[in-house]
C-alpha cells in the first residue's frame, strides 16, 4: 500500500460532539445543496471553525464523537471543509461507519496529548501520529480490514463499484 501522510493543524473539541453540533438539524432544508450546507459545519460547537480551518487540518476531540443522528451529511460536510481526518478517544458507531463510507479517516487515539493548534503529521498506513509541535510520536488503533479497504477506495460507493460487492 502506498504511504499516505496527512499534514495539518489540530482543532480541539470536547467530549460528546453530536451530529447536531456538527451539522444542525435545522439546516435540513440545505441537504440537497451541499456547498451551502457545508458553510454551517461545526457551527453550534464553534461558530468560527469554518473561517479558521484550512485544507488538511484535523478535528481532534474527546469521547463519543458523532453521537446522534445517522445523517451522513455530518462526515460529508467535515470532509468538504477540507478536514483530512478526525482523531478522537472514541466515536459513535453510525458516525464512524459513515465517515469511512465517505472516505474520511477516523482515528481512535489518546487525544489528551494533543493541544489545540498543534501541527500533526499522520502516517495512515503505519498507524503513527507525529506531533511536530510537541516533537512526540503516538499511535492510533488499527482500523478493521474491511473498513480500511473501503477507506482506501475513497468510500463505500467507489469500493462497491470497483469490487461489485463486499470482500471480507
Amino acid at each position, binding site marked *: 500500500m502506498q504511504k499516505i501522510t496527512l499534514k495539518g493543524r489540530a482543532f480541539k473539541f470536547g467530549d460528546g460532539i*453530536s451530529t*447536531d453540533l456538527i451539522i444542525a438539524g*435545522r439546516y435540513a*432544508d440545505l441537504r440537497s445543496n451541499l456547498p451551502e450546507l457545508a458553510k454551517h459545519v461545526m457551527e*453550534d460547537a464553534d461558530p468560527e471553525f469554518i473561517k479558521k480551518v484550512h485544507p488538511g487540518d484535523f478535528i481532534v476531540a474527546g469521547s463519543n464523537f458523532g453521537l*446522534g443522528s445517522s445523517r451522513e451529511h455530518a462526515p460529508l460536510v467535515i470532509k468538504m471543509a477540507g478536514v483530512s481526518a478526525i482523531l478522537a478517544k472514541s466515536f459513535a458507531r453510525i458516525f464512524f*461507519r459513515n465517515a469511512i463510507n465517505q472516505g474520511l479517516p477516523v482515528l481512535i487515539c489518546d487525544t489528551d496529548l494533543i493541544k489545540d493548534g498543534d501541527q500533526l503529521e499522520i502516517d495512515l498506513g503505519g498507524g503513527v501520529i507525529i506531533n511536530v509541535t510537541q516533537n512526540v510520536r503516538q499511535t492510533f488503533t488499527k482500523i478493521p480490514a474491511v473498513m480500511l479497504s473501503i477507506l482506501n477506495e475513497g468510500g463505500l460507493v467507489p469500493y*462497491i463499484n470497483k469490487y461489485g*460487492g463486499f470482500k471480507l
Partner: protein
Amino acid sequence: MGKTLSEKIISMKSGMDVSAGDIVICPVDLVFVQDTTGPLTVRQFRAGKNNTLVNPSNSVIFIDHASPSPSLSLSNDHIFLRNFANETGCLIFDVGNGVCHQLVAEKFANPGDIIIGADSHTVTAGALCSFATGMGSSDIAIAWALGKTWLRVPESYRIELKGKFQKYIGAKDLILHLIGTIGADGATYKALEFTGDALDDMSMSQRLTIANMAVEAGAKVGLFPSDQVTHDYLYACGRKNKYKPLQADADATYERSIIIDVSKLEPTVSRPHSVDNIALAKNLGDVNINQVFIGTCTNGRLDDLSQVAKILENRKVHREVRLLVCPASRSIMAEAIKAGYISTIIEAGGLILPPGCAACLGLHQGVLGNGEVCISTANRNFKGRMGNPESFIYLASPATAAASAITGKITDPREVL
C-alpha cells in the same frame, strides 16, 4: 456454546455459525430511508454502477421528518423521493402516515429479521426481536442495490428487568435510568438484550420505547425476546403467520450483566444537553417550562396518549405553557380519536399535530425560542436539537410531561394525581 439473541439472528440470516466479533455479509429484510436522509441515499444509489433495486418491496421511503413540508427546498426533496419511488417501484409512505419507526413496527418488522434504516432510531424494531440498526445513506444505497450489508456481530449486555412498575412509572423512566447509569457511550457498538420477569407485563408499546433509546447509550441494537406479547402484537397487526418464538440461550456469553428492579424506579428526567444527565423529577426543584411536546417514535403510541388523557381529564394546561401532542401514526391517531383521548387533550388546552416527527428535530411545528425550556417525550435533548442552540430540552415520560403541562414546571406525576 450458547448464543445471544444477536448471535442467533445473524447466524440464521447469514447461514454461518457466528459469535461476537465476527464480521459477516448478511441479507437484509427491510431497507429504508426517511425524507432527510433519503435524497442523499438516492444520489449515492445512482452513483453506483449497479443501480437497480434488488427488492423494491423491501425498499421503503418514509416522509415523516418534515411532514408536511415547511419549506420550498424540502418540498422539492419530497418530489425527488416520490419520483424515485415511481421510477423504481419501491414503497413510499407519504406525509400523514406517521413516523417511520412506528410504521416499521405496525407493517414490517418480524422476529428474526434484519432491518437497516437511514435513521439512528431504526433500533426501535428490536422490540419485535428484529436485529434492527441505523446506518447512513451510503450503506443504505448499497443495501438497496445488493440486498445485503456487512455487519460486525456485537458483544451483548444482558439487561435483566424484574418486578412491576409503580403507577405512572414505566418504560421511559426505565430507559432514562439505564442510560444515566451506563452513560451516553456506555454501550457503544454493543447489543442491549433485555430479559427478565418484568417483560411479561410489558406491552409492545413499552418495549418499543425502550428499544428506541438503545442508541442513546451508543448501542447498535436493543433486542427483546419474541414471546407471547410479540405474538399478540403481530396478530393485531395482521401478521400472525410471521410469529416465531426466539430468545437467547441460557448459557450465552455476555460482556456485561445489569439487573434493574423496575418497582424501585421513580419518574426520571434527562436534563440539557445530554441524555445521560438524569435526575428524579421530584428532585429537580422549580424548572419552569414554556413548551411540552408529547409524541415521537419514543412515546407517541396509544397507551402513551391514554396516560396523558387520564392526567389531563378535567384539568387545564397552565396558561404560560404550549402543549403539543403528536400521535406517532395515522392508525394511532384514529384510535385515539375513537377512545376520546384527543378531545380530552384539546379540551384541556392542548394542540394536536399531524402524525410524524413534528417538533422533535427542530425543523418545524414547535421550534423553541431563545432561552425557552421544553419538556419532551422524545429521545434526544442535544444542544440545538429542537432548532435553537439557545434553548433547553428535558426528556421525560408522557405522564411526567402531562403533569408538567398542568403545573407549568417539571413535575412528578404522582404530585398531581
